[in-house]
């Protein structure tokens, strides 16, 4: 589903941010990505939704290969995965409903299905009653839930979350994390970058630690080897 093979990423100014990263994330998995700031977590996530392409090596996501990928293919890939950020990235002048609907409208989804899909996604994140609220009228946790609803509305196979709880208090963090677990339980894979080691420890999910651009620990390593073998 997601495969990194000897991936290097280098930026002209900051230099090498990822070095020889190889990993596999299977269908329906929940994976934590941990490591200090600047370790390369966000860069790794960007390679998954192909905001960035590797300098060397290959990334495969749902059958799309990074090498020679076209912008149109990237756009199509993003319709199959959801992305959530620390800063929510909502449109401030639109209601929660409109923010979620936006993800369907921009991919020319049939208008007849938009309303029901939006209602379903908002219900799934526990905001059925807040559809007409503006982002500024909502708490941080609620705004992140709207962002998650927007990411979920296209039924993605994976949810990529870059520090989704980074701006939230403990209570909201727990709520958002529980929501991500529920989403994962319903079959959607989750790849979540976080600094919150407490959350990681308690959950028992697979953890990949990155330091200075390299994978220094992968709790699901043995499993990964098996999957790579099956793929080969």
């Amino acid at each position: 589903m997601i495969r990194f093979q000897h991936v290097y990423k280098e930026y002209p100014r900051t230099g090498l941010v990822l070095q020889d990263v190889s990993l596999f994330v299977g269908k329906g998995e929940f994976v934590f990505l941990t490591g200090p700031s600047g370790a390369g977590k966000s860069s790794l996530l960007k390679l998954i939704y192909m905001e960035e392409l590797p300098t060397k090596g290959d990334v495969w996501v749902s059958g799309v290969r990074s090498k020679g990928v076209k912008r149109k293919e990237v756009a199509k890939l993003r319709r199959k995965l959801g992305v959530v950020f620390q800063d929510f990235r909502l449109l401030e002048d639109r209601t929660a409903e409109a923010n979620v609907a936006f993800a369907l409208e921009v991919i020319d989804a049939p208008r007849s299905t938009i309303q029901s899909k939006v209602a379903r996604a908002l219900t799934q994140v526990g905001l059925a009653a807040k559809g007409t609220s503006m982002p500024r009228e909502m708490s941080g946790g609620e705004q992140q839930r709207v962002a998650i609803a927007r990411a979920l509305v296209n039924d993605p196979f994976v949810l990529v979350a870059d520090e989704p709880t980074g701006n939230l208090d403990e209570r909201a963090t727990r709520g958002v994390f529980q929501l991500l677990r529920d989403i994962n339980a319903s079959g959607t894979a989750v790849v979540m970058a976080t600094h919150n080691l407490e959350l990681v420890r308690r959950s028992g999910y697979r953890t990949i630690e990155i330091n200075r651009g390299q994978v220094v620990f992968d709790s699901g390593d043995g499993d990964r080897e098996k999957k790579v073998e099956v793929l080969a």
Partner: protein
Amino acid sequence: MRLALRETMIGFRRAPMLSVLSITTIAFSLFAFGLFSLVAVNIRKTLGEVESRVEIRAFLADGTPVEVVSAAMGDIGAFPEVSRVEYVSPDSALARARAELGEFKDVFESAFLPASIDIRMREGHRDPETVKMIAGRIRSFEFVDDIRYGEDWVDKLYRIRNVATATGLVLGLAFAAVAVIIIGATIRMAVMARAREISIMRLVGATDAFIRRPFLIDGFLKGVLGGLLALGLTWFASQVISRNFIQTAFFSRGLASLGLLGGALLGVIGSSLSVGRHLRKV
């Protein structure tokens, strides 16, 4: 398309001052272009009027029989370069000379002027070479005594026309390029103001073509509105010039529509370049 229109309107509503500023900037850059075009149109019109007077006058030998003259006129009239052939009798020649001289008309009280045939050239055949070639052919008629066609001024006129056309073309292109750059810059401001939306659109899988659409509509509308404003300003300027300085011709309806279409096209090109540049970066 509905969504693209809605997004365009949201852009207008969210930053009305920016939109007004864009339209005004476009209007003034097109107004400069319009003023220049107005000058070009009027120069062209004047030159066209002068050009239409290009004629060859063939003076006939004394005593040429009428039937010979009219046969020759038929032949000359059949030349594709010739639009009109007219016989001028000695009496008419005298009357015309007296009319042209005004207060000195008495000079011609008892003069005798030769009969002539005046040949007007068709539009597109008034260049010095063609006029000279036709004059040469007419000179070969035996009964033609002398021939005049203002060699010097035909040559000069044609040169002025060519210089005016070339200058017009170069300046026009320069003005159009400036307009595209200005429109591009103003649309770029609109693009920057909506950078967040663009990044979200890309994140949820919108194609570049889809993201471009509202901006192209935006550029088109701003181009049309700016064009309309520029047209109004140019019309006003032409009225002021006509009343206070010199009678000027305004654009024909077709040319005005073409100008509006040009404004819209510049708007679309400007936005396309701006959005394209932004999309290549993100």
